[in-house]
């Protein structure tokens, strides 16, 4: 009888300490939970705006429901398609060309001593620390019509000045080079880290059997870092609807003449919101962007999970 009583009281004590512990831990996390709620979850309520005829004075709740009218309008006017196409095309190029170059750089760095790696890495990370605004300055010294270095070189060789900021046809190249220039050093870190984590026994064995460097890369390095590459590709696919606003807004100096080749969904939404104050259009576009992006992450992750669960993100 006494033993049972003791056991019960022990159980209760355990329960109390558990409760106390959970309560205290929750208390520690509360400030972060609240901030996340305000800045990440509250805005989700705004996702119903596209289904309403939103009038700021009436608020979201007070505005009238209009069904899919905004979506119909968005599709009918069709001005968004250029931006959608640009967003997808640029992101695909960024993703695949980016990963390829980053992996190559990582493979090259992997062959070098720690000291050499540090020197190259420091140099290649510089652009990552610069904001797109500063990158716009750098590009401006090159592309400025009168004083830019490129036009100086062109006229030196007898060519005629190019109005870079008025000519959309050059911009796909400029945008892609800018992106790679800023991103490659950073991206390579990830792959270099996973290469460094590999067991050197593989390479030693391969060397004994006379495998060349390229064979080692092809049959050892690349297969072994495939999980990391897969994850990076999944993350990239998930973000494929999201244009890098800083890149497309600053680097182009928001020059309207360049929109045919530089307008992406994010700059389009920004303009509809801030310049035109078209809340229906901007919120509807944003809604589609968020939802499609979410579906893409979930789907790609699901596919990877099916093929090889160990490579999946979650």
């Amino acid at each position, binding site marked *: 009888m006494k033993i049972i009583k003791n056991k019960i009281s022990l159980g209760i004590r355990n329960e109390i300490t*558990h409760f106390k*512990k*959970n309560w*205290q*831990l929750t208390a*520690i*996390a509360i400030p*972060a*939970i609240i*901030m*996340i709620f305000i*800045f*990440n979850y*509250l*805005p*989700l*309520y*705004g*996702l119903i*705006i596209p289904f309403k005829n939103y009038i700021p004075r009436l608020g*979201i709740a007070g505005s009238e429901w209009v069904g899919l009218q905004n979506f119909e309008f968005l599709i009918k006017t069709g001005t968004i398609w250029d931006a959608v196409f640009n967003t997808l095309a640029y992101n695909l190029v960024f993703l695949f060309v980016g990963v390829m170059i980053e992996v190559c*750089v990582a493979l*090259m*760095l992997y*062959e*070098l*001593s*720690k000291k*050499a790696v540090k020197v190259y*890495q*420091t*140099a*290649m*990370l*510089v*652009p990552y*620390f610069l904001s797109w*605004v*500063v990158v716009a300055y*750098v590009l401006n*010294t090159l592309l400025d019509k009168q*004083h830019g*270095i490129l036009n100086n070189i062109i006229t030196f060789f007898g060519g005629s000045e190019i109005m870079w900021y008025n000519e959309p046809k050059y911009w796909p190249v400029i945008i892609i080079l800018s992106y790679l*220039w800023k991103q490659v050093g950073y991206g390579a870190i*990830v792959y270099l*880290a996973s290469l*460094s984590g590999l067991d050197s026994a593989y*390479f030693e064995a391969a060397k004994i059997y006379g495998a060349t460097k390229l064979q080692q890369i092809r049959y050892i390095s690349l297969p072994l870092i495939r*999980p990391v590459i897969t*994850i990076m590709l999944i993350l990239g696919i998930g973000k494929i609807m999201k244009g890098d606003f800083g890149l497309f807004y*600053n680097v182009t100096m928001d020059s309207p003449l360049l929109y045919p080749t530089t307008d992406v969904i*994010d700059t389009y*939404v*920004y303009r509809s919101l*801030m310049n035109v104050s078209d*809340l229906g259009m901007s*919120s509807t576009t*944003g809604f589609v962007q*968020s939802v499609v992006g979410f579906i893409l*992450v979930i789907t790609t992750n699901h596919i990877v999970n099916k093929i090889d669960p160990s490579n999946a993100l979650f």
Partner: protein
Amino acid sequence: MSKKILSRKGPDKTNLIPVHMVLIIMGVLCAGAFLLVLGSSFQSEKEIQQFGYSIIPRDFSLEAYKMVFTFPEMIFDAYFVTFITTVIGTVLGVFLSASAGYVISRSDYRYNRILTLYIFFTMLFSGGLVPNYILMTQWLGLKNSIWSLILPNIVHAWYIMLMKGFFKAIPEAMMESARIDGASELRIFLKIVLPVSTPVLATVALFYVLGYWNEWFLSLMYIDDQKLIKLQYLLMQILKKTQFMNSEAADAMTASGMPATEIPTLNVRMATCVVAVAPLLVVFPFVQKYFVKGVTVGSVKE
């Protein structure tokens, strides 16, 4: 690591020359591009007008920097706002991510899974520009408030996960003794966990500093008040030219008898850019180690 490098050295060392060549070219292109801005900032306005921008000035001139600091209010204000938002944002941000990261790192915490999901979900889905704009300007009324430059970026799921990974590796025994002594969870977190976690705190702090220092989007969205603009946004305005000519500095110059048209805008633009970027570029090579560590840790899957 060292063993592996040693073993890879040897017979095929000569093959590395092309590798070095490629990397040197890439390194020079990456690190060298900012020299375009730096070089141009040391040109005189006349030289730029005549010969264009150049990495190496023909006549080394400090004219642009003198101009920048002749009417320093504008840039000092921007520096001040940038500095304050960076400090407050970093301190609060690191603390918030650490606390959330610690709690979800505890596998004996009852709401571990749901809280992790709550945080992780924000990495997959967001409301987008318009809902955030309405939240900030209408619900929270933060338009033209310094908090609009701090709060929206204060918690990042990614940093929380990064912290969580680190905290998980802390040996349980360290906390056990304190728990037996009856220390509260908060006390254990503050007095035991945080002090042994300085490497990850430093790494995450670096990410925050970089993010807040380079931030311009929030200024673009929420700030009209010229007193509250940050360096990066000032740079944006200057690049669009109009602002500088219409600003107080230009007015002051005109008032002091100097025709506004003689403002050496082009080199001053570049000099302002250098002044804004300098602190980061000077500091970051030294703390790069932590930065690389952070990126590396972040890439390792849970």
